């Protein structure tokens, strides 16, 4: 059996067997606020199932921030299967989602290497398939997110499917439908529209700009519109908009998580709250377009730029500025990074440093949370300091990858020969 199959089976077994054998691990992990936030926790989903079963308006309680279609469709598994089977069904669903995402990642890896080999006119081989698969399947943060049955896994699925449809199947429309679904499930993928459309333009040479941008944008908006209307039909009210998206945008539920927002809103005077909401939302959106434009693969110049990197870096930026981030968000971004092994990573300078910073964060965050909440001998500042460092890890990754990419672009553009590349000292590109 090939190594890839072994990796896939092992990854699938881990995700299926552990929650089946230890059902309480799901609820333990759902309560850890680095792994699941009120917006994407499995517990709120189960609460929503209960509301649905008892004919209570899903958004009355203020607990449920999942969109109505997700709740309604998943409740079919919950209600029509007797109790132990429904938990196993959910385990199966999450396992299959992760395995599917892995297979797409393998295809993306292959596409990337082929695409850049063609562009740069040299043979690029990235990591092997089984390594790419294990970077995703055995990433402990991804495993934790999956075991906690957080609903952000569905968002990962649809983002990945969007990239799959775009790059492998060369279908912009379906890619936009998938992105619309991802946005419907959680608000933040909406910012990925620009990088993905830019990637569409660079990856699919045959299409012209109008077709891709306008049609793609129109399909995205109409998918969202269709989904909102169907949600309205399902719940007979537009309350879900405030619960699902209003919570994320206006940060209605101020609970401690791994993000940067909550501390500002607990410690700041209320007079400044609207200002900070505006600033944070502006921050989320403002860097996407510059990243996309800087890394765009313009045809007129030498083969510089990397729109796929723009997508990944935009995703990591979104994870940085999200109102309710989890470890899964960064982990998903991290599992996309090995795809760039051949092009960007040789020029990344301090991977070791932010790798260690990431580990330190992961150790200290639960400890400081425990000190603050349970023991009472720490305070929120300890925990928030680790959140700041968590954000710093995102920024390190973006910085390092950007600098590596720009260094590589310089090399390609100025055709620096092999021998001189290590001696290169660039200060301003």
């Amino acid at each position, binding site marked *: 059996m090939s190594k890839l199959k072994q990796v896939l089976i092992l990854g699938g077994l881990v995700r299926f067997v552990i929650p089946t054998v230890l059902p309480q691990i799901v609820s333990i992990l759902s309560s850890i606020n680095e792994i699941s936030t009120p917006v994407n926790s499995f517990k709120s989903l189960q609460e929503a199932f209960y509301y649905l079963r008892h004919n209570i308006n899903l958004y009355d309680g203020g607990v449920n921030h999942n969109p109505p279609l997700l709740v309604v469709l998943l*409740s079919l598994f919950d209600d029509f299967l007797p109790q132990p089977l429904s938990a196993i069904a959910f385990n199966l669903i999450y396992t299959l989602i992760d395995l599917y995402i892995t297979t797409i990642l393998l295809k993306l890896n292959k596409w990337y290497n082929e695409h850049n080999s063609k562009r740069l006119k040299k043979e690029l081989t990235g990591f092997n398939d089984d390594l790419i698969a294990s970077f995703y399947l055995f990433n402990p943060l991804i495993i934790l997110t999956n075991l906690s049955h957080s609903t952000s896994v569905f968002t990962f699925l649809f983002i990945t499917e969007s990239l799959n449809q775009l790059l492998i199947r060369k279908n912009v429309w379906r890619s936009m439908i998938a992105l619309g*679904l991802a946005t419907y499930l959680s608000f933040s993928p909406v910012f990925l529209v620009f990088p993905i459309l830019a990637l569409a333009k660079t990856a699919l040479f045959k299409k012209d700009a109008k077709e891709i941008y306008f049609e793609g944008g129109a399909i995205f908006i109409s998918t969202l519109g269709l989904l909102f209307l169907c949600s309205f039909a*399902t719940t*007979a009210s537009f309350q879900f908009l405030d619960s699902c998206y209003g919570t994320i945008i206006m940060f209605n539920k101020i609970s401690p998580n791994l993000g940067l927002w909550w501390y500002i809103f607990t410690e700041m005077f209320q007079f400044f709250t609207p200002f900070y909401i505006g600033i944070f939302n502006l921050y989320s959106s403002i860097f996407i377009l510059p990243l996309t434009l800087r890394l765009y693969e313009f045809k007129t110049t030498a083969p510089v730029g990397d729109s796929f990197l723009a997508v990944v870096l935009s995703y990591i930026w979104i994870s940085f500025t999200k109102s309710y981030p989890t470890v899964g968000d960064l982990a998903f971004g991290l599992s996309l990074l090995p795809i760039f092994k051949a092009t960007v990573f040789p020029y990344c300078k301090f991977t070791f440093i932010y790798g260690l910073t990431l580990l330190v964060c992961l150790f200290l965050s639960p400890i400081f949370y425990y000190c603050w909440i349970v023991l009472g001998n720490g305070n929120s500042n300890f925990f928030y300091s680790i959140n700041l460092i968590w954000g710093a890890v995102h920024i390190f990754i973006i910085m390092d990858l950007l600098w590596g990419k720009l260094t590589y672009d310089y090399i390609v553009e100025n055709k620096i020969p092999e021998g001189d590349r290590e001696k290169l000292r660039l200060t301003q590109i």
Partner: protein
Amino acid sequence: MLVIPVVIYILSLLTAIIADPNVVTTDEAETIISESRHTNNWAVLVSTSRFWFNYRHMANVLSLYRTVKRLGIPDSQIILMLSDDIACNARNAFPGTVFNNMDQALDLYGDSIEVDYRGYEVTVENFIRLLTDRWDPDHPRSKRLLTDENSNIFIYLTGHGGNEFLKFQDAEEIGSYDIADAFEQMHEKKRYNEIFFMIDTCQANTMYERFYSPNILAVGSSRLDESSYSHHSDMDIGVAVIDRFTYYTLDFLEKVDKDSKQTMDKLFDVYTYQNVHSNPGIRTDLFKRDVSKVLITDFLGNVQNVVVDDVEKDILYNANHDEKGEVLAQNESKPIVSYSTIQISFDSEDDSHVLTELSPEFQRLAGLLTLLFVLALWLTAKQA
């Protein structure tokens, strides 16, 4: 002819009483409530002496404070007036404590006592003002006697006294006529239901001789020309720690707890010459109830008489049915009523913005239809 309805009436009363203990007839309820018409209890505990050697007066008052709190009167309804700081007196060998017994078993000072008037705030003027509630508008509520016509008040005074006077702060005195007039003002202003007045000083009985308002039960520790004595001294503290009268009062009250049915006459039986070494007096002529039927907790505790009514307890039933038992319409929202420039609107609790009620089956069906729509969209979005 009249016998039959009377018999039926008596039988129905009997069956009501015997059958279901929860069902109370109106007459029963009235008798229960009329036994003692008070609904709340207050206590005014005053010590009037200064200086270290009057340790026992402070201990008297604090012991009764403790008893009264133990039997349920909350701090918000106790006015504690301590004229001097004994616990933190420089001569106190056990600083921060006040004991009422040689065995030092109980620290009366503790860490949860609330003194309302302390030191030089304990004056005759403040005492009279307290009783009659004639204060400046900015006098704090916690230092006022906020009683009404359903309040039973327990008033305890201790210190040095004499023939129709009680010495305050070694500088002034209050007379028996002053207290009597203050009580009459309280009666006129309907500030008490019943007063239990206890005074432990020398020649204490003279202090209550001048009362003329109704519903006052008064107890004093000694007669005219008699002194009241202290009980014992603590050799380590160096002074007497409790007075005899209060000692025997406490001795009796320590056996009383919140649900006790002990009556006042049992308390008065404790006041013998052998115990207190003086002739305590009890004045009951102004008090219309029989002392043997008055509970201790009527004055020293905070026990309310509760009559349990037979009401539907299920909240969900009450929320969904009206008084006649008919089902209420869901999501009732009442209209806006406009009274000239003021608009009053009563919004129902659950204004859920939902257009119609949808059953879960319909919602699931709608979800599946959406899934089909999206799948159809997906399948038709085939690009060449």
